[in-house]
Protein backbone atom coordinates (compact mmCIF):
# COMPACT_ATOMS: atom_id res chain seq x y z
CA UNK A 1 0.00 0.00 0.00
CA UNK A 2 2.70 2.40 0.96
CA UNK A 3 4.61 1.50 -2.16
CA UNK A 4 1.67 2.43 -4.29
CA UNK A 5 1.34 5.78 -2.60
CA UNK A 6 4.96 6.64 -3.13
CA UNK A 7 4.99 5.34 -6.67
CA UNK A 8 2.03 7.44 -7.55
CA UNK A 9 3.22 10.63 -6.03
CA UNK A 10 6.63 10.29 -7.58
CA UNK A 11 5.35 9.72 -11.06
CA UNK A 12 2.87 12.57 -10.81
CA UNK A 13 3.77 15.36 -13.21
CA UNK A 14 4.55 18.78 -11.81
CA UNK A 15 1.23 20.61 -11.70
CA UNK A 16 1.25 23.65 -13.86
CA UNK A 17 -1.60 25.69 -12.52
CA UNK A 18 -2.75 27.24 -9.31
CA UNK A 19 -5.83 25.07 -8.86
CA UNK A 20 -3.77 21.88 -9.12
CA UNK A 21 -1.40 23.17 -6.48
CA UNK A 22 -4.25 23.98 -4.14
CA UNK A 23 -5.77 20.55 -4.64
CA UNK A 24 -2.43 18.99 -3.91
CA UNK A 25 -1.86 21.16 -0.86
CA UNK A 26 -5.22 20.10 0.48
CA UNK A 27 -4.89 16.42 -0.25
CA UNK A 28 -2.28 15.73 2.39
CA UNK A 29 0.88 16.99 3.92
CA UNK A 30 3.50 18.18 1.48
CA UNK A 31 7.00 16.86 1.59
CA UNK A 32 9.95 19.21 1.29
CA UNK A 33 10.30 18.56 -2.41
CA UNK A 34 6.72 19.56 -3.09
CA UNK A 35 7.05 22.72 -1.04
CA UNK A 36 10.13 23.61 -3.01
CA UNK A 37 8.27 23.00 -6.24
CA UNK A 38 5.47 25.31 -5.21
CA UNK A 39 7.92 27.98 -4.23
CA UNK A 40 9.81 27.67 -7.48
CA UNK A 41 6.56 27.88 -9.34
CA UNK A 42 5.59 31.02 -7.45
CA UNK A 43 8.97 32.51 -8.26
CA UNK A 44 8.65 31.66 -11.91
CA UNK A 45 6.12 34.39 -12.66
CA UNK A 46 4.93 37.34 -10.62
CA UNK A 47 1.30 36.43 -11.16
CA UNK A 48 1.61 32.89 -9.89
CA UNK A 49 1.36 33.82 -6.25
CA UNK A 50 -1.76 35.79 -7.03
CA UNK A 51 -3.25 32.88 -8.92
CA UNK A 52 -2.54 30.57 -6.01
CA UNK A 53 -4.36 32.95 -3.69
CA UNK A 54 -7.26 33.18 -6.09
CA UNK A 55 -7.58 29.43 -6.26
CA UNK A 56 -7.35 29.17 -2.49
CA UNK A 57 -9.92 31.92 -2.13
CA UNK A 58 -12.22 30.15 -4.58
CA UNK A 59 -11.93 27.04 -2.45
CA UNK A 60 -12.80 28.87 0.72
CA UNK A 61 -15.57 30.95 -0.83
CA UNK A 62 -17.15 27.86 -2.31
CA UNK A 63 -18.14 27.07 1.25
CA UNK A 64 -20.85 29.70 0.73
CA UNK A 65 -22.71 27.31 -1.54
CA UNK A 66 -23.02 24.49 0.91
CA UNK A 67 -26.72 25.19 1.51
CA UNK A 68 -27.50 26.20 -2.05
CA UNK A 69 -30.70 24.41 -3.09
CA UNK A 70 -29.21 23.06 -6.27
CA UNK A 71 -26.11 21.86 -4.50
CA UNK A 72 -28.13 20.15 -1.77
CA UNK A 73 -30.36 18.56 -4.37
CA UNK A 74 -27.48 17.16 -6.36
CA UNK A 75 -25.73 15.94 -3.24
CA UNK A 76 -28.91 14.15 -2.15
CA UNK A 77 -28.96 12.39 -5.52
CA UNK A 78 -25.35 11.43 -5.11
CA UNK A 79 -26.01 10.14 -1.61
CA UNK A 80 -28.80 8.00 -3.01
CA UNK A 81 -26.29 6.57 -5.46
CA UNK A 82 -23.65 5.91 -2.88
CA UNK A 83 -23.64 3.84 0.26
CA UNK A 84 -22.51 6.45 2.75
CA UNK A 85 -24.89 9.36 3.12
CA UNK A 86 -23.63 12.04 5.39
CA UNK A 87 -26.40 14.50 4.62
CA UNK A 88 -27.98 14.72 8.06
CA UNK A 89 -24.87 16.04 9.52
CA UNK A 90 -24.25 18.63 6.85
CA UNK A 91 -27.81 19.95 6.91
CA UNK A 92 -27.75 20.28 10.64
CA UNK A 93 -24.47 22.11 10.54
CA UNK A 94 -25.70 24.47 7.92
CA UNK A 95 -28.86 25.50 9.75
CA UNK A 96 -26.79 26.62 12.65
CA UNK A 97 -24.21 28.36 10.57
CA UNK A 98 -26.28 31.29 9.33
CA UNK A 99 -25.61 33.72 12.16
CA UNK A 100 -21.97 32.88 11.90
CA UNK A 101 -21.95 33.86 8.25
CA UNK A 102 -22.67 37.45 9.12
CA UNK A 103 -19.88 37.34 11.62
CA UNK A 104 -17.58 35.87 9.02
CA UNK A 105 -18.42 38.59 6.56
CA UNK A 106 -17.58 41.21 9.11
CA UNK A 107 -14.30 39.64 9.92
CA UNK A 108 -13.29 39.48 6.29
CA UNK A 109 -12.66 43.15 5.84
CA UNK A 110 -11.53 43.84 9.34
CA UNK A 111 -9.04 41.01 9.30
CA UNK A 112 -7.58 42.44 6.15
CA UNK A 113 -7.12 45.75 7.88
CA UNK A 114 -5.36 43.99 10.71
CA UNK A 115 -3.13 42.05 8.39
CA UNK A 116 -2.26 45.17 6.46
CA UNK A 117 -1.28 46.96 9.64
CA UNK A 118 0.71 44.01 10.72
CA UNK A 119 2.46 43.76 7.39
CA UNK A 120 3.42 47.41 7.47
CA UNK A 121 5.29 46.64 10.61
CA UNK A 122 7.05 43.65 9.23
CA UNK A 123 9.90 42.94 8.91
CA UNK A 124 10.39 42.80 12.61
CA UNK A 125 12.94 45.10 14.14
CA UNK A 126 15.00 44.28 17.20
CA UNK A 127 17.15 46.76 19.02
CA UNK A 128 19.34 46.93 22.07
CA UNK A 129 20.38 50.00 23.98
CA UNK A 130 23.91 50.78 25.01
CA UNK A 131 25.09 48.21 27.48
CA UNK A 132 22.15 45.92 26.73
CA UNK A 133 22.45 42.46 25.25
CA UNK A 134 19.67 40.18 24.17
CA UNK A 135 19.12 36.77 22.61
CA UNK A 136 16.23 36.33 20.22
CA UNK A 137 15.00 33.03 18.82
CA UNK A 138 13.64 33.08 15.30
CA UNK A 139 10.82 31.04 13.80
CA UNK A 140 13.26 28.49 12.40
CA UNK A 141 14.98 28.09 15.79
CA UNK A 142 18.00 30.06 14.74
CA UNK A 143 19.15 32.42 17.45
CA UNK A 144 20.62 35.87 17.25
CA UNK A 145 22.54 37.37 20.14
CA UNK A 146 22.41 41.13 19.90
CA UNK A 147 25.29 43.02 21.38
CA UNK A 148 25.18 46.55 22.73
CA UNK A 149 23.62 49.38 20.72
CA UNK A 150 22.44 47.14 17.92
CA UNK A 151 19.58 47.38 15.52
CA UNK A 152 18.54 44.67 13.08
CA UNK A 153 15.55 43.59 11.07
CA UNK A 154 14.35 40.05 10.52
CA UNK A 155 12.42 39.07 7.43
CA UNK A 156 11.51 35.48 6.65
CA UNK A 157 10.05 34.45 3.35
CA UNK A 158 9.62 31.25 1.42
CA UNK A 159 12.95 31.55 -0.29
CA UNK A 160 15.21 33.14 2.27
CA UNK A 161 15.80 34.16 5.84
CA UNK A 162 16.99 37.74 5.65
CA UNK A 163 18.50 39.85 8.37
CA UNK A 164 19.52 43.46 7.97
CA UNK A 165 22.08 44.55 10.53
CA UNK A 166 21.69 48.30 10.58
CA UNK A 167 24.20 48.91 13.29
CA UNK A 168 26.06 47.18 16.07
CA UNK A 169 26.99 43.56 16.37
CA UNK A 170 25.24 40.23 16.36
CA UNK A 171 26.16 36.60 16.73
CA UNK A 172 24.16 34.26 14.54
CA UNK A 173 23.52 30.62 15.34
CA UNK A 174 21.82 29.45 12.19
CA UNK A 175 19.53 26.42 12.04
CA UNK A 176 20.11 24.34 8.95
CA UNK A 177 17.61 24.83 6.15
CA UNK A 178 19.09 24.22 2.75
CA UNK A 179 16.00 25.55 0.98
CA UNK A 180 16.19 28.92 2.70
CA UNK A 181 19.63 30.47 2.91
CA UNK A 182 20.27 32.73 5.87
CA UNK A 183 21.41 36.09 4.60
CA UNK A 184 22.75 38.98 6.65
CA UNK A 185 22.91 42.38 5.03
CA UNK A 186 25.33 44.82 6.63
CA UNK A 187 26.74 47.91 4.97
CA UNK A 188 27.58 47.23 1.36
CA UNK A 189 27.89 43.51 1.78
CA UNK A 190 25.99 40.32 2.38
CA UNK A 191 26.83 37.20 4.31
CA UNK A 192 25.13 34.00 3.27
CA UNK A 193 24.97 30.86 5.35
CA UNK A 194 23.02 27.66 5.41
CA UNK A 195 23.65 26.31 8.87
CA UNK A 196 26.47 27.79 10.87
CA UNK A 197 27.56 30.16 13.60
CA UNK A 198 29.04 33.51 12.73
CA UNK A 199 29.43 37.04 14.02
CA UNK A 200 28.84 40.29 12.19
CA UNK A 201 30.15 43.57 13.58
CA UNK A 202 28.99 46.74 11.85
CA UNK A 203 30.83 49.84 13.00
CA UNK A 204 30.98 53.25 11.42
CA UNK A 205 34.11 52.43 9.50
CA UNK A 206 33.09 49.05 8.15
CA UNK A 207 31.84 45.55 8.74
CA UNK A 208 33.71 42.51 10.06
CA UNK A 209 32.37 39.00 9.54
CA UNK A 210 33.86 36.11 11.54
CA UNK A 211 32.91 32.46 11.23
CA UNK A 212 32.89 30.28 14.32
CA UNK A 213 31.37 27.13 12.83
CA UNK A 214 30.49 25.98 9.34
CA UNK A 215 30.97 28.08 6.28
CA UNK A 216 29.54 31.32 4.93
CA UNK A 217 29.85 33.32 1.77
CA UNK A 218 30.50 37.03 2.08
CA UNK A 219 29.82 39.27 -0.87
CA UNK A 220 30.62 42.94 -0.82
CA UNK A 221 29.45 45.38 -3.44
CA UNK A 222 32.30 47.72 -3.99
CA UNK A 223 31.63 51.23 -5.15
CA UNK A 224 33.54 52.08 -8.30
CA UNK A 225 36.85 53.81 -7.71
CA UNK A 226 37.56 57.19 -9.12
CA UNK A 227 39.67 56.57 -12.15
CA UNK A 228 41.48 58.83 -14.58
CA UNK A 229 38.66 58.42 -17.07
CA UNK A 230 35.83 60.47 -15.66
CA UNK A 231 32.55 58.62 -15.54
CA UNK A 232 29.23 59.65 -14.19
CA UNK A 233 28.64 58.01 -10.87
CA UNK A 234 25.21 56.66 -11.78
CA UNK A 235 26.48 54.80 -14.79
CA UNK A 236 29.38 53.16 -13.01
CA UNK A 237 28.53 49.62 -12.02
CA UNK A 238 29.42 48.32 -8.62
CA UNK A 239 31.87 45.47 -8.42
CA UNK A 240 30.88 42.47 -6.36
CA UNK A 241 33.54 40.43 -4.66
CA UNK A 242 32.81 37.17 -2.89
CA UNK A 243 34.79 35.23 -0.35
CA UNK A 244 34.08 31.83 1.13
CA UNK A 245 34.90 31.72 4.80
CA UNK A 246 35.42 28.59 6.83
CA UNK A 247 35.35 28.30 10.60
CA UNK A 248 38.03 30.47 12.18
CA UNK A 249 38.26 32.81 9.22
CA UNK A 250 37.06 36.35 8.95
CA UNK A 251 36.86 39.17 6.49
CA UNK A 252 36.06 42.86 6.64
CA UNK A 253 34.79 45.38 4.18
CA UNK A 254 34.82 49.13 4.34
CA UNK A 255 31.92 51.56 4.00
CA UNK A 256 32.51 51.72 0.26
CA UNK A 257 32.46 47.94 0.02
CA UNK A 258 36.17 47.48 -0.44
CA UNK A 259 37.38 44.20 1.06
CA UNK A 260 39.87 44.66 3.86
CA UNK A 261 42.07 42.55 6.01
CA UNK A 262 40.09 42.39 9.25
CA UNK A 263 41.55 43.78 12.41
CA UNK A 264 42.57 40.66 14.32
CA UNK A 265 41.28 42.12 17.56
CA UNK A 266 37.77 42.51 16.21
CA UNK A 267 37.74 39.17 14.46
CA UNK A 268 39.11 37.14 17.34
CA UNK A 269 36.89 34.27 18.49
CA UNK A 270 37.86 35.05 22.08
CA UNK A 271 36.39 38.53 21.83
CA UNK A 272 33.20 37.15 20.28
CA UNK A 273 32.85 34.41 22.88
CA UNK A 274 33.43 36.99 25.59
CA UNK A 275 30.85 39.51 24.42
CA UNK A 276 28.23 36.84 23.99
CA UNK A 277 28.68 36.14 27.67
CA UNK A 278 28.43 39.78 28.59
CA UNK A 279 32.15 40.37 28.99
CA UNK A 280 34.70 42.59 27.38
CA UNK A 281 37.95 40.84 26.76
CA UNK A 282 41.16 42.56 25.79
CA UNK A 283 44.33 40.66 24.94
CA UNK A 284 47.01 43.28 24.77
CA UNK A 285 44.77 45.69 22.90
CA UNK A 286 46.11 49.19 22.28
CA UNK A 287 44.44 51.44 24.79
CA UNK A 288 42.68 53.67 22.29
CA UNK A 289 41.03 50.69 20.64
CA UNK A 290 40.03 49.16 23.96
CA UNK A 291 38.43 52.45 24.94
CA UNK A 292 36.61 52.64 21.63
CA UNK A 293 35.32 49.13 22.26
CA UNK A 294 34.29 49.97 25.81
CA UNK A 295 32.49 53.08 24.58
CA UNK A 296 30.18 50.97 22.44
CA UNK A 297 28.59 49.73 25.65
CA UNK A 298 28.10 52.88 27.66
CA UNK A 299 26.10 56.07 27.54
CA UNK A 300 28.94 58.16 28.86
CA UNK A 301 32.07 57.51 26.81
CA UNK A 302 35.67 57.69 27.89
CA UNK A 303 37.95 60.15 26.07
CA UNK A 304 41.70 59.81 25.97
CA UNK A 305 43.16 63.26 26.39
CA UNK A 306 46.81 62.36 26.01
CA UNK A 307 47.79 60.73 22.72
CA UNK A 308 50.91 59.41 24.40
CA UNK A 309 48.95 56.65 26.16
CA UNK A 310 46.99 55.56 23.11
CA UNK A 311 49.30 52.68 22.28
CA UNK A 312 49.68 51.26 25.76
CA UNK A 313 48.61 47.62 25.68
CA UNK A 314 45.77 46.65 27.96
CA UNK A 315 44.66 43.12 28.88
CA UNK A 316 41.81 41.88 31.00
CA UNK A 317 38.23 40.76 31.16
CA UNK A 318 35.53 43.19 32.26
CA UNK A 319 31.86 42.70 32.79
CA UNK A 320 29.69 44.76 30.49
CA UNK A 321 28.17 47.49 32.60
CA UNK A 322 30.91 47.45 35.21
CA UNK A 323 32.29 50.85 34.29
CA UNK A 324 34.02 51.24 37.66
CA UNK A 325 36.37 48.29 37.15
CA UNK A 326 37.39 49.36 33.68
CA UNK A 327 37.98 52.96 34.64
CA UNK A 328 39.97 51.87 37.67
CA UNK A 329 42.12 49.65 35.47
CA UNK A 330 42.71 52.52 33.07
CA UNK A 331 43.65 54.89 35.82
CA UNK A 332 46.16 52.42 37.09
CA UNK A 333 47.53 51.68 33.64
CA UNK A 334 48.20 55.26 32.66
CA UNK A 335 48.83 56.38 36.20
CA UNK A 336 46.60 59.35 35.52
CA UNK A 337 43.34 60.95 36.42
CA UNK A 338 39.74 60.61 35.34
CA UNK A 339 37.55 63.69 35.20
CA UNK A 340 33.83 63.57 34.58
CA UNK A 341 32.91 66.60 32.49
CA UNK A 342 29.25 65.72 32.31
CA UNK A 343 29.21 64.23 28.81
CA UNK A 344 32.34 62.12 29.01
CA UNK A 345 34.96 60.71 31.33
CA UNK A 346 38.25 62.35 30.36
CA UNK A 347 41.36 60.35 31.04
CA UNK A 348 44.54 62.31 31.37
CA UNK A 349 47.94 60.66 31.56
CA UNK A 350 50.69 62.06 33.67
Amino acid at each position, binding site marked *: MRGILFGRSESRPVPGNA*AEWVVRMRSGSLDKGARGQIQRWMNAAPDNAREL*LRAEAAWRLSGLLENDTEVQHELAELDALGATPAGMDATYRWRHALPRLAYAAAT*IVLAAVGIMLWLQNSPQTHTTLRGEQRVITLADNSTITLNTDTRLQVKFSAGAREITLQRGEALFQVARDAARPFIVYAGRGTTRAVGTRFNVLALDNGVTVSVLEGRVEVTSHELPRRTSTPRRAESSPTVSVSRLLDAGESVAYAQDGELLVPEPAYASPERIAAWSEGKLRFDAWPLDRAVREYNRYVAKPIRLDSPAVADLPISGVFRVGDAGAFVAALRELVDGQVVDDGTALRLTGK
Partner: protein
Amino acid sequence: MLKSFVQRLGRSSADCEDIVQEAYLRLLESSRRGRAPRSPVGYLLVIARNLVAEAGRRSAREERRGRALQVLNAQLDPASPSPEELAFVEQSRQRLTQALRALPVRARRVFLLHRYRALRHIEIAVRLGVTVRTVERDIACALSRLKDALSEGDPP
Protein backbone atom coordinates in the same frame (compact mmCIF):
# COMPACT_ATOMS: atom_id res chain seq x y z
CA MET B 1 -2.37 -0.19 7.09
CA LEU B 2 -5.26 0.83 4.93
CA LYS B 3 -6.52 3.14 7.61
CA SER B 4 -3.29 5.01 7.94
CA PHE B 5 -3.09 5.27 4.19
CA VAL B 6 -6.49 6.88 4.03
CA GLN B 7 -5.71 9.16 6.93
CA ARG B 8 -2.63 10.31 5.15
CA LEU B 9 -4.57 11.19 2.07
CA GLY B 10 -7.16 13.09 4.02
CA ARG B 11 -5.07 14.91 6.52
CA SER B 12 -5.26 18.64 6.23
CA SER B 13 -1.90 20.22 6.18
CA ALA B 14 -0.22 22.98 8.09
CA ASP B 15 1.99 23.45 5.05
CA CYS B 16 -1.06 24.58 3.18
CA GLU B 17 -1.54 27.54 5.48
CA ASP B 18 2.14 28.35 5.30
CA ILE B 19 2.14 28.40 1.54
CA VAL B 20 -0.96 30.51 1.34
CA GLN B 21 0.59 32.91 3.76
CA GLU B 22 3.77 33.07 1.72
CA ALA B 23 1.80 33.75 -1.42
CA TYR B 24 -0.08 36.48 0.37
CA LEU B 25 3.10 38.08 1.61
CA ARG B 26 4.61 37.92 -1.84
CA LEU B 27 1.64 39.61 -3.35
CA LEU B 28 1.77 42.40 -0.83
CA GLU B 29 5.50 42.71 -1.32
CA SER B 30 5.07 43.18 -5.02
CA SER B 31 2.34 45.70 -4.46
CA ARG B 32 4.53 47.65 -2.11
CA ARG B 33 7.22 47.68 -4.76
CA GLY B 34 4.77 49.47 -6.99
CA ARG B 35 3.27 46.57 -8.90
CA ALA B 36 -0.27 46.74 -7.64
CA PRO B 37 -1.98 43.41 -7.16
CA ARG B 38 -4.66 43.70 -9.77
CA SER B 39 -6.79 41.10 -8.16
CA PRO B 40 -9.96 42.31 -6.51
CA VAL B 41 -9.61 43.15 -2.90
CA GLY B 42 -12.10 40.46 -2.00
CA TYR B 43 -9.75 37.56 -2.51
CA LEU B 44 -7.15 39.07 -0.32
CA LEU B 45 -9.75 39.70 2.30
CA VAL B 46 -10.86 36.12 2.39
CA ILE B 47 -7.35 34.88 2.67
CA ALA B 48 -6.62 37.44 5.30
CA ARG B 49 -9.60 36.38 7.34
CA ASN B 50 -8.53 32.81 7.28
CA LEU B 51 -4.96 33.55 8.10
CA VAL B 52 -6.04 35.41 11.14
CA ALA B 53 -8.75 33.00 12.14
CA GLU B 54 -6.35 30.14 11.98
CA ALA B 55 -3.79 31.88 14.07
CA GLY B 56 -1.87 29.44 16.14
CA ARG B 57 0.64 26.67 16.00
CA ARG B 58 4.09 27.93 15.32
CA SER B 59 6.01 30.17 17.61
CA ALA B 60 7.08 33.26 15.71
CA ARG B 61 4.30 33.12 13.20
CA GLU B 62 1.94 32.61 16.04
CA GLU B 63 3.19 35.72 17.65
CA ARG B 64 2.75 37.83 14.54
CA ARG B 65 -0.67 36.46 13.80
CA GLY B 66 -1.57 36.93 17.40
CA ARG B 67 -0.71 40.57 17.10
CA ALA B 68 -2.86 40.93 14.02
CA LEU B 69 -5.63 39.25 15.95
CA GLN B 70 -5.35 41.77 18.75
CA VAL B 71 -5.70 44.62 16.30
CA LEU B 72 -8.76 42.87 15.00
CA ASN B 73 -10.43 42.18 18.26
CA ALA B 74 -10.22 45.82 19.08
CA GLN B 75 -12.25 46.72 16.01
CA LEU B 76 -14.50 43.79 15.52
CA ASP B 77 -18.23 44.24 15.60
CA PRO B 78 -19.72 40.93 14.52
CA ALA B 79 -23.29 42.17 14.78
CA SER B 80 -23.08 44.63 11.92
CA PRO B 81 -21.19 43.65 8.78
CA SER B 82 -20.91 46.57 6.43
CA PRO B 83 -22.97 46.74 3.22
CA GLU B 84 -19.77 46.27 1.21
CA GLU B 85 -18.95 43.07 3.03
CA LEU B 86 -22.42 41.66 2.47
CA ALA B 87 -22.34 42.70 -1.16
CA PHE B 88 -19.03 40.97 -1.65
CA VAL B 89 -20.36 37.75 -0.16
CA GLU B 90 -23.51 37.92 -2.24
CA GLN B 91 -21.65 38.59 -5.47
CA SER B 92 -19.29 35.72 -4.81
CA ARG B 93 -22.18 33.40 -4.13
CA GLN B 94 -23.84 34.27 -7.43
CA ARG B 95 -20.71 33.89 -9.47
CA LEU B 96 -19.85 30.56 -7.89
CA THR B 97 -23.35 29.21 -8.40
CA GLN B 98 -23.20 30.01 -12.10
CA ALA B 99 -19.76 28.50 -12.45
CA LEU B 100 -20.85 25.29 -10.73
CA ARG B 101 -23.85 25.00 -13.04
CA ALA B 102 -21.63 25.36 -16.06
CA LEU B 103 -19.30 22.52 -15.05
CA PRO B 104 -19.35 19.16 -16.81
CA VAL B 105 -21.51 16.73 -14.83
CA ARG B 106 -18.73 14.46 -13.65
CA ALA B 107 -16.46 17.28 -12.57
CA ARG B 108 -19.31 18.91 -10.67
CA ARG B 109 -20.17 15.69 -8.87
CA VAL B 110 -16.58 15.06 -7.95
CA PHE B 111 -16.20 18.58 -6.67
CA LEU B 112 -19.44 18.55 -4.67
CA LEU B 113 -18.54 15.29 -2.96
CA HIS B 114 -15.08 16.52 -2.16
CA ARG B 115 -16.07 19.98 -1.01
CA TYR B 116 -19.36 19.43 0.79
CA ARG B 117 -19.15 15.82 1.83
CA ALA B 118 -15.46 16.02 2.63
CA LEU B 119 -14.88 12.72 0.88
CA ARG B 120 -11.35 11.69 0.10
CA HIS B 121 -10.16 11.33 -3.46
CA ILE B 122 -10.11 7.58 -3.20
CA GLU B 123 -13.64 7.42 -1.76
CA ILE B 124 -14.96 9.56 -4.59
CA ALA B 125 -13.16 7.42 -7.10
CA VAL B 126 -14.77 4.28 -5.70
CA ARG B 127 -18.20 5.82 -5.53
CA LEU B 128 -18.22 7.24 -9.05
CA GLY B 129 -16.25 4.41 -10.62
CA VAL B 130 -13.38 6.54 -11.92
CA THR B 131 -9.66 6.59 -11.18
CA VAL B 132 -8.12 8.64 -8.41
CA ARG B 133 -6.20 10.58 -11.03
CA THR B 134 -9.47 11.54 -12.71
CA VAL B 135 -10.85 12.70 -9.38
CA GLU B 136 -7.82 14.89 -8.84
CA ARG B 137 -8.04 16.35 -12.32
CA ASP B 138 -11.74 17.04 -11.95
CA ILE B 139 -11.31 18.80 -8.63
CA ALA B 140 -8.54 20.96 -10.04
CA CYS B 141 -10.56 21.71 -13.16
CA ALA B 142 -13.62 22.66 -11.12
CA LEU B 143 -11.62 24.82 -8.78
CA SER B 144 -9.92 26.51 -11.68
CA ARG B 145 -13.30 27.42 -13.20
CA LEU B 146 -14.60 28.73 -9.88
CA LYS B 147 -11.47 30.81 -9.54
CA ASP B 148 -11.92 32.30 -12.99
CA ALA B 149 -15.59 32.96 -12.35
CA LEU B 150 -14.74 34.98 -9.27
CA SER B 151 -12.41 37.22 -11.25
CA GLU B 152 -14.93 37.85 -14.03
CA GLY B 153 -15.21 41.49 -14.91
CA ASP B 154 -12.12 42.38 -12.95
CA PRO B 155 -9.17 43.89 -14.76
CA PRO B 156 -6.85 41.10 -15.92
